[in-house]
C-alpha cells in the first residue's frame, strides 16, 4: 500500500515522461526513444494505480482480463493496419478515448465513494462540474470521431451535410448543455446526467457532419485536442497529476495542429468548423468557363521529359494515398536516381487527410526523410527544377490562389509548381479538386496532363525510363 503522496510523485514522474515522449518527436532520430519514454510513463502510471489501491481480490483478475483483452485487440490493429488507413485509425482511437472518459465519469458519478468524491446524491460540487466537463467533452469527442471515421473510411459521403437552421440548433444545444450542467450541480439527479450525455453525443455528431472530406486534417486535429481536454477534465475529478498533465499536453498539441492545418488552407478555424465549404459556388464556375485546351500525354512522353531533366520535384497528394502509389513512385525515383537525376519531394501542410499523412506514406515506401521537404523549405527550388511531377495533389498547386482575389482559395499558400520548366500532372480526369474550382495549372503551356490511375501511370513511366 502506497501513501497518497508517494503515488502522487510517481504520477508526476509519468507526466514528465509523457512530456519527454512528445519532446522526442522533434527529430526522427530521437523519436523512437521518445516513444519508449511514453511507454515507461504508462507502465509506471498503471502499476502505481494497482499498488495504491492494494485491493488484489477477485476484481483484480477481471481488471487484468479486460486490460489484456483490450491490449490484444489494440496490438492486433496496430500490426494489421495499412499505413494508408492511418487517418481512420487515429479517428477511431480518438473515439475510444472519448468513450472511456464518458465511462469513467459515469462510474465516478454512480459510485463517488470509490474516488473520494462524496456519496451518491451528495457529490462535491467542484468534482461534479469537473466530471461533467470530462463527460461532455468525451461524448463530443466520441460521436464526432465516429463521424470523422465514417467519412474517412468512405462509409459516409465526404460531402458536407448542411441543413437550414443548423447553426441556431447547435447554439441551442450548447446553451442547454450549460444549463443542464448547472441543474445537475444543484439537483444531483442521475436523469439529468444521462440527458447531458445524450445531447453531448448529439452535438458531436452535428458538429462534424457539415465538414467536408478535405477539411479532415483540421477535424482530426481538433478531435485530438478534445480528447485531451476530456482527459484533463477527468484528471481534475480524480485529482490525478499524470492525467492533468497529459490532458493539457494533448489538448494543446491538437489545438496547434488545427492551427497549422487552418493556416495551410488560409482559412480561419471558425470558417472550417461552420463547414459547408466547397458546396456553394461550384455551379457558377463550371458553366461560365468554356473548354480550354489541355495538352495530354502518355507514359512514354513523361519518361522522355524526365530522362532529359537534371532535377525533378515530386508533389504527392491524397490521390497517391488512394491509389496506393507510394511504392511504385519510389521505384520510379530509384530509376531516376540511377540516371543521376536529382529528386526531392515537396509536401504541402494539408496534403492528405491528416497532418503528416504524406510523410508517413513516403517513409513506408522507404523514401529517406531528408529527401522530403516542407512547403517553405522547397518552394524556391521549383524555379530551378526541370520537371515537377504532381501525383494526386490538386488545389495545393493551383496558381489561382496567388493571382485571383475572387477565388475561394485566394491567399492559401501553394506550391509554385508552375515555375518549373515542365509540369507532369497525374490525374484521372480534369475534374476540379474539393474546393470546386478549376486548376489553372492544367491549361499552362508547360503542363503535360497524364490521365491515368496514379499507380499504373507511375509503373508505366518506370518501364519507359
Amino acid at each position, binding site marked *: 500500500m502506497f501513501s497518497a503522496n508517494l503515488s502522487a510523485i510517481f504520477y508526476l514522474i509519468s507526466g514528465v515522461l509523457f512530456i519527454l515522449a512528445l519532446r522526442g518527436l522533434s527529430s526522427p532520430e530521437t*523519436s523512437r526513444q521518445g*516513444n519508449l519514454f511514453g511507454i515507461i*510513463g504508462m507502465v509506471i*502510471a498503471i502499476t502505481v494505480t494497482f499498488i495504491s489501491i492494494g485491493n488484489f481480490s477477485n476484481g483484480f483478475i477481471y481488471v487484468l482480463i479486460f486490460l489484456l483483452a*483490450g491490449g490484444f485487440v489494440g496490438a492486433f490493429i496496430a500490426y494489421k493496419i495499412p499505413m494508408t488507413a492511418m487517418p481512420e485509425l487515429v479517428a477511431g482511437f480518438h473515439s475510444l478515448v472519448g468513450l472511456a472518459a464518458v465511462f469513467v465519469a459515469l462510474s465516478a458519478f454512480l459510485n463517488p465513494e470509490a474516488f473520494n468524491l462524496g456519496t451518491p446524491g451528495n457529490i462535491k460540487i467542484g468534482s461534479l462540474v469537473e466530471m461533467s466537463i470530462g463527460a461532455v467533452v468525451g461524448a463530443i469527442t466520441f460521436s464526432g470521431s465516429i463521424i470523422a471515421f465514417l467519412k474517412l473510411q468512405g462509409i459516409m459521403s465526404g460531402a458536407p451535410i448542411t441543413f437550414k437552421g443548423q447553426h441556431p440548433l447547435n447554439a441551442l444545444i450548447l446553451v442547454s448543455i450549460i444549463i443542464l450542467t448547472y441543474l445537475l450541480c444543484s439537483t444531483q439527479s442521475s436523469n439529468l446526467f444521462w440527458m447531458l450525455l445524450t445531447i453531448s453525443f448529439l452535438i458531436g455528431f452535428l458538429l462534424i457532419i457539415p465538414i467536408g472530406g478535405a477539411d479532415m486534417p483540421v477535424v482530426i486535429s481538433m478531435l485530438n485536442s478534445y480528447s485531451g481536454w476530456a482527459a484533463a477534465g477527468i484528471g481534475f475529478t480524480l485529482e490525478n497529476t499524470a492525467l492533468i498533465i497529459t490532458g*493539457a499536453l494533448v489538448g494543446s498539441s491538437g489545438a496547434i495542429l488545427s492551427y497549422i492545418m487552418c493556416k495551410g488552407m488560409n482559412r480561419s478555424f471558425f470558417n472550417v468548423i461552420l463547414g459547408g465549404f466547397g458546396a456553394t459556388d461550384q455551379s457558377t464556375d463550371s458553366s461560365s468557363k468554356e473548354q480550354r485546351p489541355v495538352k495530354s500525354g502518355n507514359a512514354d512522353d513523361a519518361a522522355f521529359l524526365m530522362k532529359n531533366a537534371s532535377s525533378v520535384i515530386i508533389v504527392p497528394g491524397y490521390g497517391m494515398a488512394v491509389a496506393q502509389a507510394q511504392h511504385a513512385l519510389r521505384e520510379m525515383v530509384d530509376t531516376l536516381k540511377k540516371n543521376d537525376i536529382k529528386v526531392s519531394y515537396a509536401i504541402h501542410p494539408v496534403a492528405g487527410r491528416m497532418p*503528416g499523412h504524406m510523410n508517413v506514406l513516403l517513409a513506408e515506401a522507404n523514401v529517406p526523410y531528408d529527401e*522530403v521537404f516542407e512547403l517553405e523549405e522547397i518552394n524556391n527550388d521549383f524555379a530551378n527544377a526541370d520537371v515537377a511531377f504532381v501525383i494526386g495533389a490538386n488545389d495545393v498547386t493551383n496558381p489561382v490562389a496567388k493571382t485571383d482575389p475572387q477565388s475561394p482559395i485566394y491567399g492559401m499558400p501553394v506550391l509554385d509548381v508552375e515555375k518549373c520548366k515542365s509540369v507532369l500532372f497525374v490525374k484521372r480526369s480534369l475534374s476540379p479538386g474539393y474546393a470546386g474550382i478549376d486548376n489553372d495549372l492544367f491549361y499552362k503551356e508547360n503542363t503535360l496532363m497524364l490521365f491515368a490511375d496514379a499507380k499504373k501511370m507511375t509503373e508505366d513511366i518506370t518501364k519507359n525510363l
Partner: protein
Amino acid sequence: MEIDPFIFRLSIFILSIFIGYYVVWSVTPSLHTPLMSVTNAISSVIIVGAIIAGLAGKSTSIFNTSSIYGFLAIFLAAINIFGGFLVTQRMLAMYKKKKKDK
C-alpha cells in the same frame, strides 16, 4: 488561510498547457502523424481512473453498474494504449535517413 488543492492542480494544468505549446511547436512537421498517434496513446492514461472504478466493487458483487463502466473503460483505454504505442513505433521505425555509402 490555506490554499485549496484545486488551485495547485489548476497551476499544474496551466503550466502543462504552456509546456505542450512549446514542445509541440518543436515537433518536426514530418512527424505530425506519429505525434497524433502517440498523444492518443498517452491520453489513455485515463485508464488509471478506469482501474479505480473497476476495483471499487465489493468482493460479493464485483460487477455492479459502476464497476462495469470501469471495466468497459479499461478495455477501451487498453486498446488505445497498446494500439497507439505500437502503431507509433511501427511508423517511427520506417523513418530512415539517406544511406551514406552513395
